[in-house]
C-alpha cells in the first residue's frame, strides 16, 4: 500500500520559498529484528542488510537483564560514537530521523555510523521511521522541529515495543531508548518507554567496566562539571564573528600552536591581505582555548601591546591546574627583553569558527592522588594541550600509548575535557611507536581494501598482444637499474649506447604505472589519497599494492616490463640533439646497487655492454652536473643516517651517515634531465593543466641567520641569487675547520622554502630555485609518488599513447590534488624524521652515555641546538633546569651567541656533549644532551650526573614534584 502525503517545508534560498515535497508512507518497512515474522522478509530495494539479532545476547546489563535493542537519540550518537563503535555494543536501531540529523550536523560522525550499519557483526539497523505508516508524525502547532524529532523518536520506540510484543517468542525483547536529554527522557518515561541516559546504561554493563572511560563527558546544558574560577574569556558566537570578520574587526585564520612554547601561537590569516598575515598570540587567556589547526577569529591588540616572537623554550608540565598565578609568571618570562624591531602584530583569540579536533595519540599522566579517576593525558604532539580524561583503568593504561578524543573545553577548566578511545600498546614498543607516528602524521596505512585489490591485474600476468601494439620493443637494449641496496620498488632504469653518427643515445625508462592504475577506479582513488609511499626505518607504507610496487611495475632484471621511456640523442658534450618519449617494453639486464655500479665503472677488467653503458652515462652525468652547477644549482647538505638493523630483532645496532657515490649523482642527473624534458613537453602541450613542481626563492630575510652565522666566522655569503649563493658557499672554506662548509650548507637548507606541486594554469611562477631550472616536474618515480602518475598520464595523452579523461583537464581539480599531494609529502617527511628519531633513541638506549663531538647549529635565548655529525643527530642543550639555580644567561642576537656565566657559545663552535636517552619521561623519550666542553661554571653537576647511569634521575624528579 502506498499512501501519499505532502508536507510543507520552507527553505532559505535567497528569498523565501515554499517547498512542497511528496512524502510517501509505506507499510512494508521491516523492523529489522531477525525473529520477526510479521514484517516482510526482504528489505525493499533488495540486498540483505544486516539486521538485528534474533536473540540479542549482548553484554549483561544490570538495569535490563533481558534481551534488548538499543535506540539512541541524535545527540547521543553525535557525542558517544566512540562507545557505540566498541564491539561490545550490538543490536542498535538507528532511526532515519536520527541519521538525518546527524548528517546535517557532523559529516565525519555520519560516515562512521554508516560504516557501523554496514558492518554485519555490529547488528546495527537503520529503520526508516519517517516513511513508516505508523511512525510518521507531523509537526504540531507550536512545536519546534527539534521537539518534533524527539517526539518522532519516542513514537518509533513505542511502536517497536508494541511490535516486538506481537512476536511470539518465549523471551520478550525490549527496546531501550538512550538519551542524555533530561526533558526527553522524562517525557519518554511518562509515555511508558524504558529510557536511560548513556551513562546509566554503560555503567550498568558490569562485565565491561572499561567502557565507562570512553564516555564523552559532555556537560549537560549549562550544568558545569565543577565550579571553580572562570579562567577564559567567553567565545563570541559564530554569527557575531562572521559579521566582525566582514567588517574587519576580527581576522579569520588557522591557529598554529608553537611546538616549543605552549603559551605562544601564530594565526595564519586567510585571504590575500599583505599585512597582518601572521598574527602572534601569547598567553593563556589570549590563546583562549584554541587548539592547533582550529580555524579561529582573532582581534588585533593595540600597537603598544604588540610583542615579539619569544625565543624561549617552554613546556607545559604543571600538574597542578589550580595554580594560575604560576602561569602568569611564565607569561611574564615571554615579555622580557623586547626588541623594538622584532615586534609583530599581536592579537587574541575571540572565538572559534571551526574546530579541527581529531583523536590524539599520547600517554596518560597518572594523577598523584590514589584512586583518582580524573587524569591528565599528554598528547604526543607538543602543540596539543593536555587533555583531562576520566578513567578507572589508569593503572592499566599507565605506560601505554592511547588515543583520546576531545569533547569540549569549558571556561573554568585549565585543560580541555576528553575521553579515552583506544589503547595502542605499550610505549617504547616498536610496533606501537610506529603506529603512533603514522597516526600522528596522518599517514593512511591500513591494508588495501578488497575493492582496491580487485583492480589489480590477474596473476599470472604477461604482456599481451594488445599491449605490444602501441609500444616500442626496446628489449634488445642493454638497460640496467641502479638503486640503493634492498630496493624492491625499482621505478627507473637507464641505458646508453653509441649510434652510428658518432652521437650517443641515452634512455631513461620509467615503470609504466599508469598502465595499471586507470583513472577513477578504487585503486586510483586509494593511491591519490595516499599520495606517496612513506619510508620508515624498518617499514615501507606503499602507495600502491605490493603486487604492483614490488613486482609488475618494478623494473626488475631479466623480466619483460612495461615502461615509459624518455630517449635523447646527445653528442659527447652532453648537449641534447633530439628528445623522444614513447611507451615501451624493456628487459633490464641487471639490477645494481650504487656500490656495484661504481665497482663496474672503476674496475678496468670489466668491459661488458652494461659496464660500457654505465661508463658512458657516468661521463655524460659529470658534464650535466657541471652545467647545472654553473647555472646556479645549489648543492645542499642534510645529515642523513642509515641504521644497520639486527636481522632478528630489527633493532638498530649501528648507524652511519649516508655515503654518496658518483653513481648516486649519475642516476640523479639523468632523472633530473628526464623530469625537465617531460615538464617542458607537458607544459608545451597543456599550458593550463600541466602538473609541475616549483621551488620558490626564499625571501631574503630567511638568510639572515645564515649570513650572521657566516659573518661570525669571517665569511661572506651572498644571497642575491642562487648562483651567488652557490658560489659563495663553495668559497666558504676554512682550512682549520673542514666541517664548516657542510655546516653552512646544512644551515642553508634550513633557509629554503618547501618545493611544491602546482597546476600550471593556476600559477605563473614556475622557477625551481634549488635546481636552477625554469621548469620542473616529477616523472621518474610513479611507483612511490602519485604526482608522477598524473604526469605520466599527461605525457601519454601528449604523445597520443593514451586517452584523456575529464578530471585530467580540470585545473581546479588538479590544484586541489596538488594541495593534497603537498600535504601528504610534508607529512611523509615528518613521519620519516620521527621514525629516524625513534630509532636513534632505540640505538642510544643500549649505548648508555656517549661522549661526542658536536657543532653548535643555532643559538637560542636559553639553549643551544647542536649537531653531532657522527650520528647526524641534532639536539637541544638547555641551560635552565627547574631544580637548579639558573645560570646567568646573556643572549646576543647579532652574532648570534649566548653567554652562559662566563663562557660564550657562538654558532659553529665545536663542543663536546654527553648524549644519553632521557627516559624519565616515557611520554616523550628524548635525547638528552649535556655540554661537557667548554666547561661552564656551575654546570659541573651535569657532567658528573651524566657520568652516572640515567636511572638515578628518576627519584630525583619525583622528589621535585612533591615540593
Amino acid at each position, binding site marked *: 500500500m502506498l499512501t501519499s502525503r*505532502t508536507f*510543507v*517545508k*520552507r527553505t*532559505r534560498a535567497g*528569498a*523565501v520559498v*515554499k*517547498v*512542497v515535497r511528496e512524502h510517501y508512507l509505506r507499510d512494508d518497512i521491516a523492523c529489522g529484528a531477525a525473529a520477526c515474522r510479521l514484517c516482510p522478509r526482504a528489505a525493499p530495494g533488495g540486498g540483505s542488510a544486516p539486521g538485528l539479532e534474533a536473540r540479542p545476547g549482548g553484554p549483561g546489563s544490570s538495569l535490563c537483564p533481558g534481551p534488548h535493542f538499543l535506540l539512541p537519540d541524535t545527540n547521543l550518537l553525535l557525542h558517544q560514537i566512540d562507545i557505540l563503535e566498541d564491539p561490545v555494543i550490538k543490536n542498535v536501531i538507528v532511526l532515519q530521523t536520527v541519521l538525518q540529523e546527524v548528517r546535517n550536523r557532523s559529516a565525519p560522525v555520519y560516515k562512521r555510523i554508516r560504516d557501523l550499519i554496514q558492518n554485519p557483526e555490529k547488528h546495527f539497523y537503520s529503520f526508516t521511521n519517517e516513511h513508516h505508516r505508523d511512525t510518521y508524525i*507531523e*509537526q504540531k*502547532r*507550536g*512545536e*519546534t*522541529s527539534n521537539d518534533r524529532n524527539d517526539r518522532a523518536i519516542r513514537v518509533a520506540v513505542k511502536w517497536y515495543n508494541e511490535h516486538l510484543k506481537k512476536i511470539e517468542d518465549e523471551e520478550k525483547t525490549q527496546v531501550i531508548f538512550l538519551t542524555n536529554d533530561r526533558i526527553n527522557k522524562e517525557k519518554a518515561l511518562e509515555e511508558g518507554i524504558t529510557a536511560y541516559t548513556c551513562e546509566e546504561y554503560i555503567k550498568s554493563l558490569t562485565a565491561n567496566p572499561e567502557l565507562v572511560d570512553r564516555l564523552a563527558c559532555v556537560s549537560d546544558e549549562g550544568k558545569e562539571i565543577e565550579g571553580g574560577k572562570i579562567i577564559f574569556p567567553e567565545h563570541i558566537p559564530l554569527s557575531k564573528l562572521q*559579521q566582525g570578520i566582514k*567588517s574587519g574587526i576580527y581576522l579569520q585564520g588557522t591557529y598554529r600552536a608553537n611546538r616549543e612554547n605552549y603559551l605562544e601561537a601564530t594565526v595564519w590569516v586567510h585571504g590575500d591581505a599583505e599585512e597582518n598575515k601572521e598574527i602572534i598570540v601569547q598567553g593563556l587567556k589570549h590563546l583562549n582555548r584554541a587548539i592547533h589547526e582550529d580555524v579561529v577569529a582573532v582581534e588585533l591588540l593595540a600597537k603598544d601591546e604588540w610583542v615579539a616572537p619569544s625565543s624561549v623554550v617552554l613546556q607545559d608540565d604543571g600538574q597542578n591546574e589550580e595554580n594560575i598565578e604560576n602561569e602568569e609568571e611564565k607569561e611574564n618570562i615571554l615579555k622580557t627583553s623586547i626588541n623594538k624591531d622584532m615586534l609583530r602584530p599581536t592579537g587574541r583569540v575571540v572565538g572559534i569558527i571551526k574546530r579541527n579536533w581529531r583523536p590524539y595519540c599520547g600517554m596518560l599522566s597518572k594523577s598523584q592522588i590514589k584512586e583518582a579517576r580524573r587524569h591528565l593525558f599528554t598528547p604526543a604532539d607538543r602543540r596539543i594541550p593536555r587533555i583531562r580524561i576520566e578513567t578507572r583503568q589508569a593503572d592499566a593504561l599507565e605506560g601505554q600509548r592511547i588515543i583520546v578524543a576531545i569533547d569540549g573545553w569549558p571556561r573554568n577548566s585549565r585543560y580541555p575535557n576528553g575521553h579515552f578511545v583506544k589503547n595502542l600498546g605499550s610505549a617504547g614498543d616498536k610496533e606501537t611507536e610506529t603506529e603512533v607516528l603514522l597516526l600522528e602524521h596522518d599517514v593512511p596505512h591500513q591494508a588495501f581494501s578488497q575493492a582496491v585489490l580487485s583492480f589489480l591485474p590477474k596473476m599470472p600476468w604477461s604482456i599481451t598482444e594488445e599491449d605490444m601494439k602501441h609500444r616500442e620493443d626496446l628489449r634488445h637494449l642493454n638497460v640496467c637499474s641502479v638503486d640503493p641496496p634492498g630496493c624492491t620498488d625499482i621505478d627507473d632504469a637507464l641505458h646508453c649506447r653509441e649510434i652510428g653518427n658518432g652521437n650517443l643515445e641515452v634512455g631513461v625508462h620509467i615503470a609504466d604505472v599508469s598502465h595499471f592504475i586507470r583513472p577513477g577506479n578504487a585503486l586510483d582513488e586509494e593511491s591519490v589519497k595516499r599520495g606517496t609511499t612513506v619510508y620508515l626505518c624498518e617499514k615501507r607504507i606503499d602507495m600502491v599494492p605490493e603486487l604492483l610496487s614490488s613486482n609488475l611495475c618494478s623494473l626488475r632484471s631479466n623480466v619483460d616490463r612495461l615502461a615509459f621511456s624518455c630517449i635523447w640523442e646527445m653528442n659527447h658534450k652532453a648537449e641534447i640533439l633530439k628528445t623522444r618519449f614513447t611507451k615501451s617494453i624493456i628487459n633490464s639486464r641487471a639490477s645494481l646497487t650504487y656500490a656495484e655500479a661504481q665497482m663496474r665503472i672503476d674496475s678496468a677488467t670489466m668491459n661488458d655492454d652494461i659496464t660500457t653503458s654505465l661508463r658512458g652515462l657516468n661521463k655524460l652525468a659529470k658534464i650535466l652536473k657541471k652545467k647545472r652547477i654553473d647555472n646556479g644549482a645549489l648543492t645542499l647538505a642534510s645529515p642523513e643516517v642509515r641504521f644497520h638493523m639486527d636481522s632478528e630483532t630489527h633493532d638498530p645496532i649501528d648507524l652511519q651517515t649516508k655515503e654518496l657515490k658518483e653513481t648516486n649523482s649519475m642516476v640523479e642527473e639523468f632523472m633530473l634531465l628526464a623530469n625537465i624534458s617531460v615538464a617542458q613537453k607537458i607544459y608545451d602541450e597543456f599550458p593550463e593543466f600541466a602538473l609541475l613542481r616549483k621551488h620558490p626563492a626564499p625571501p631574503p630575510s630567511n638568510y639572515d641567520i645564515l649570513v650572521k652565522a657566516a659573518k661570525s666566522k669571517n665569511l661572506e655569503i651572498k644571497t642575491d641569487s642562487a648562483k651567488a649563493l652557490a658560489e659563495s658557499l663553495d668559497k666558504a672554506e676554512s682550512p682549520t675547520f673542514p666541517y664548516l662548509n657542510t655546516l653552512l650548507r646544512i644551515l642553508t637548507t634550513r633557509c629554503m622554502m618547501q618545493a611544491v606541486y602546482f597546476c600550471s594554469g593556476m600559477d605563473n611562477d614556475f622557477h625551481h630555485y634549488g635546481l636552477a631550472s625554469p621548469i620542473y616536474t616529477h616523472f621518474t618515480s610513479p611507483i612511490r609518488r602519485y604526482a608522477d602518475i598524473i604526469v605520466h598520464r599527461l605525457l601519454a595523452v601528449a604523445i597520443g599513447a593514451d586517452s584523456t579523461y575529464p578530471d585530467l583537464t580540470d585545473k581546479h581539480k588538479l590544484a586541489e590534488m596538488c594541495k593534497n599531494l603537498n600535504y601528504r609529502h610534508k607529512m611523509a617527511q615528518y613521519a620519516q624524521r620521527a621514525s629516524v628519531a625513534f630509532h636513534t633513541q632505540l640505538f642510544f638506549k643500549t649505548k648508555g652515555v656517549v661522549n661526542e663531538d658536536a657543532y653548535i647549529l643555532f643559538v637560542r635565548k636559553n639553549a643551544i641546538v647542536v649537531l653531532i655529525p657522527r650520528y647526524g643527530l641534532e639536539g637541544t642543550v638547555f641551560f635552565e633546569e627547574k631544580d637548579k639555580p639558573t645560570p646567568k644567561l646573556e643572549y646576543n642576537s647579532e652574532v648570534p651567541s649566548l653567554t652562559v656565566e662566563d663562557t660564550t657559545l657562538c654558532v659553529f663552535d665545536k663542543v663536546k656533549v654527553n648524549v644519553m636517552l632521557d627516559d624519565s619521561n616515557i611520554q616523550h623519550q628524548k635525547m638528552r644532551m649535556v655540554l661537557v666542553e667548554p666547561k661552564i661554571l656551575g654546570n659541573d653537576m651535569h657532567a658528573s650526573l651524566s657520568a652516572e647511569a640515567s636511572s638515578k634521575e628518576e627519584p630525583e624528579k619525583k622528589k621535585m614534584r612533591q615540593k
Partner: protein
Amino acid sequence: MASVVLSEAEKLYIVHGVQEDLRVDGRGCEDYRCAEVETDVVSNTSGSARVKLGETDILVGIKAEMGTPKLEKPDEGYLEFFVDCSSNSPELEGRGGEELGTDIANTLYRIFSCENSVDLKSLCINPKEHCWVLYVDVLLLECGGNIFDAISIAVKAALFNTRIPKVRVLEDEEGTKEIELSDDPYDCIRLNIDEVPCVVTLSKIGYRHVVDATLQEEACSLASLLISVTSKGAITSMKKVGKGSLDPESIFEMMETGQRVGKSLHIALQKILDEEENLGTSRPKVGFLG
C-alpha cells in the same frame, strides 16, 4: 468570452421570465446560483481557493514573494493580478485569451485600489527595502456566466487562506540588515479580509436587472453594472459593461440591489470560510477529483 447563440424565441422567453421574477433555472432576480468554495487546494501556494458558481469554475492561487516596495508607497506591500483564461474555450486558447485576461486583471486592480481593502502596511517587512508581494493568479477553468463575481469570491477566499511566513529583520551595529525566517511553519501572518470587497454584477434584462446571470441570460442583456461591495455594504467601485445604455434611475436601483445582495453574499461566504477553517487539518480535501 464564450457566448451562446440563442434564438429570438429563447431570448424572449428569458426576458419575459425575468419580468415575472422567475428565471429559467427557477431562481428569483436577486438569487445566486449554488456556489461551492474550497480553500487550500494547491499546496505549493501561500493561499488558494476554488470557487464553482453554477457552471463557472475559478481557481485562484496566491504566492507571497519578497520584493521591494514601490517608490511612492515605501511602507506598503502590494498585490499583482494575473488572469489566465486559456483553458476556458477553444477561441481563448493561446494568446486569444490575453485581452480578456488583461481586462479582468485591470478590473481586479481597480477593485483593490481602494486603500483599506487589504491592509498593505502589514505586508511591509522593512520600509523602502523589503515587502511582501502577493501574486494573485486567477485561472478560469470554465465559464458559465458571471465570472467577475466568481473571481472576486475566489480571490477573497484565497486571501483568507493565505499564510505568509513571519520574518524578522535583524539589524546590527553597522546597519546591515538581515532577514531571518521563523522555522516554525505555523508561525505566519494571516490577512484581515473584512474589508475585501466582492463584485456583484447586475445585468439589465428587459426592465429589470438580475444578479448572477447565466450565459444565456448574459446573452439577453445589453448592459450590466459591476459593483464592488464590502461586507459593510460600502461600494468601492463601479463599472459598466456591455454595449447598451443604462438610465440614471435604474443605476440607482441597481446600486441598491447590489449593496443588499453583496452584504448577504459576504455573510454567507464568511460563514463558509469559518466553518471550513474550524475543521482544521482533518478536513477531507475534495480538490479536483471530487
